[in-house]
């Protein structure tokens, strides 16, 4: 209930801040209207600018904002609303030109006034943000390069749009209106400054040292970190953090990984990472003693937010990492609630934490169902991929009262959610996190 109230509060704040600029337009000295379409074009331009400016808050990773929903929901919203904001900004000149065809001459960069030029450059910068984000993989951009382009182009788009607005100087002539808009523009930059300078400074004073790098089954590595000179971070099982290893906290090269260690042990945390990309392939070469920085914890994918008489945990591939954090935490807490783990793997040999999972069965009321996609000839367990039939065979009778946690590749998450829906499990009891943004 508390999260619902907070969530509604932040949505309300967002709507107020994006619609306030339109009300500001009506403040101050009266401005004679210039026709419906022209005024609609102007309103969409102002709204689009306000929505774009607020994007810096959405990606600032402010826990108060992300906690009610989960940071993945906020990031997905950021992505969706940016497309809508771009639509408004696109409509701004299009409506103007269509309703007043004479204004098309303003699109000639040779003769156009400087404030129109600024507006055109702002539009191009915004277009660069959208295109590089939607087509990052097709353009062959690495994540780090994309991040730099994203940040620079976004700031340029907002700054140039503000220059355009102040240059046109129609609805911002009054001191109050002009002051409000300049104040808003500066406020939009605050989260950027916080994320790029303040937060890294805080992280710089709370470093971690690599205590060990352990080779796990399934081309995975567990990176063990211990806090250096501070008490560490408190997290709940299932959460994740952005990690920088061997780099300055000001570096853009950071990656999100789930905690795989027990939440009861903040003095020594681990992240289990599968070799999947250019960064993860180098994890095995990280040396003990290397410095690391953590930005976290983040995420709403945690058993501590969902009390239940038991849990069903569904893991695929490296999705076992947050699940292990949950199991290790429950073992440390000596929790005796029944647990059922469906673990989807390619072969039994690649089952990360296989031995430890068998040990955990002695400490917890834990049943494990391995679902092996490519089993050996002697395998007598479940085969293929986790589906409704396999789950139906193993779920207990009180399945409707349990909470379900699903973590793994995106396709697997969709498939399992669909399977649980087929089994009649209420979807508000199924928790997952989706991190495919760009």
């Amino acid at each position, binding site marked *: 209930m508390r999260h619902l109230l907070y969530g509604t509060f932040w949505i309300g704040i967002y709507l107020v801040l994006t619609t306030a600029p339109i009300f500001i337009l009506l403040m101050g000295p009266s401005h004679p209207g210039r026709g419906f379409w022209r005024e609609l074009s102007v309103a969409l331009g102002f709204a689009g600018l306000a929505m774009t400016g607020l994007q810096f808050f959405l990606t600032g990773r402010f826990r108060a904002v992300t906690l009610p929903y*989960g940071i993945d929901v*906020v990031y*997905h919203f950021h992505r*969706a609303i940016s497309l809508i904001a771009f639509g*408004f900004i696109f409509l701004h000149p299009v409506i103007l030109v269509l309703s007043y065809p004479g204004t098309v001459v303003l699109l000639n960069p040779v003769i156009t006034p400087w404030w129109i030029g600024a507006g055109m450059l702002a539009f191009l910068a915004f277009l660069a943000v959208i295109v590089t984000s939607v087509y990052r993989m097709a353009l062959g951009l690495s994540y780090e390069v994309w991040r730099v382009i994203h940040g620079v182009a976004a700031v340029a788009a907002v700054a140039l749009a503000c220059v355009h607005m102040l240059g046109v100087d129609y609805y911002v002539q009054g001191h109050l209106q002009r002051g409000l808009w300049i104040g808003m523009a500066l406020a939009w930059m605050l989260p950027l400054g916080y994320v790029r300078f303040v937060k890294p400074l805080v992280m710089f004073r709370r470093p971690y040292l690599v205590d060990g790098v352990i080779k796990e089954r399934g081309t995975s590595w567990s990176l063990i970190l211990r806090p250096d000179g501070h008490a560490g971070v408190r997290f709940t099982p299932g959460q994740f953090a952005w990690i920088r290893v061997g780099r300055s906290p000001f570096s853009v090269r950071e990656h999100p990984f789930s905690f795989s260690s027990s939440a009861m042990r903040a003095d020594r945390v681990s992240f289990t990472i599968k070799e999947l990309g250019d960064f993860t392939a180098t994890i095995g070469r990280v040396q003990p003693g290397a410095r690391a920085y953590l930005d976290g914890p983040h995420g709403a994918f945690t058993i501590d937010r969902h009390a239940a008489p038991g849990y069903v945990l569904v893991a695929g591939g490296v999705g076992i990492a947050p699940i292990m954090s949950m199991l290790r935490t429950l073992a440390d807490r000596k929790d005796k609630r029944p647990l059922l783990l469906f673990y989807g793997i390619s072969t039994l040999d690649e089952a990360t934490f296989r031995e430890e999972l068998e040990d955990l069965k002695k400490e917890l009321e834990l049943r494990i169902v391995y679902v092996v996609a490519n089993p050996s000839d002697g395998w007598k367990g479940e085969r293929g991929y986790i589906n409704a039939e396999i789950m139906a065979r193993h779920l207990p009778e009180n399945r409707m009262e349990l909470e379900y946690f699903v973590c793994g590749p995106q396709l697997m998450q969709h498939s399992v959610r669909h399977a649980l829906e087929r089994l009649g499990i209420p979807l508000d009891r199924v928790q997952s996190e989706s991190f495919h943004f760009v």
Partner: protein
Amino acid sequence: MRETYSVHLAVISGTLIILLAVLFAVIQSPALFERSVGVAATIPHPLEGFRQCESCHGLKGDIPYPIRHLGWSIESCTRCHVPSEYAAAMKHNRYHEQRSDSGKKLIASGE
């Protein structure tokens, strides 16, 4: 599902903002709701010292009236067109069409 929730939230927010933008444009366009039976342009010059309207604005004048005014009497010019200095006082006047055997003509309300 979580991604769907985010998209729904974004679409709802965007829709509300568009509606507000339309409302703003309507507020700034009161002419949208005025009866538009050809609201006449104001006369940008005083009338004193000028000859009849037709001298400059007749079909053979320097600034001819539009063809749709053909057949209207000279006296009808100032029934619809007023000097701009009086426009504010006159802006709430309404005009309606009066049909008769001889056709339609514009009559200011109250006459």
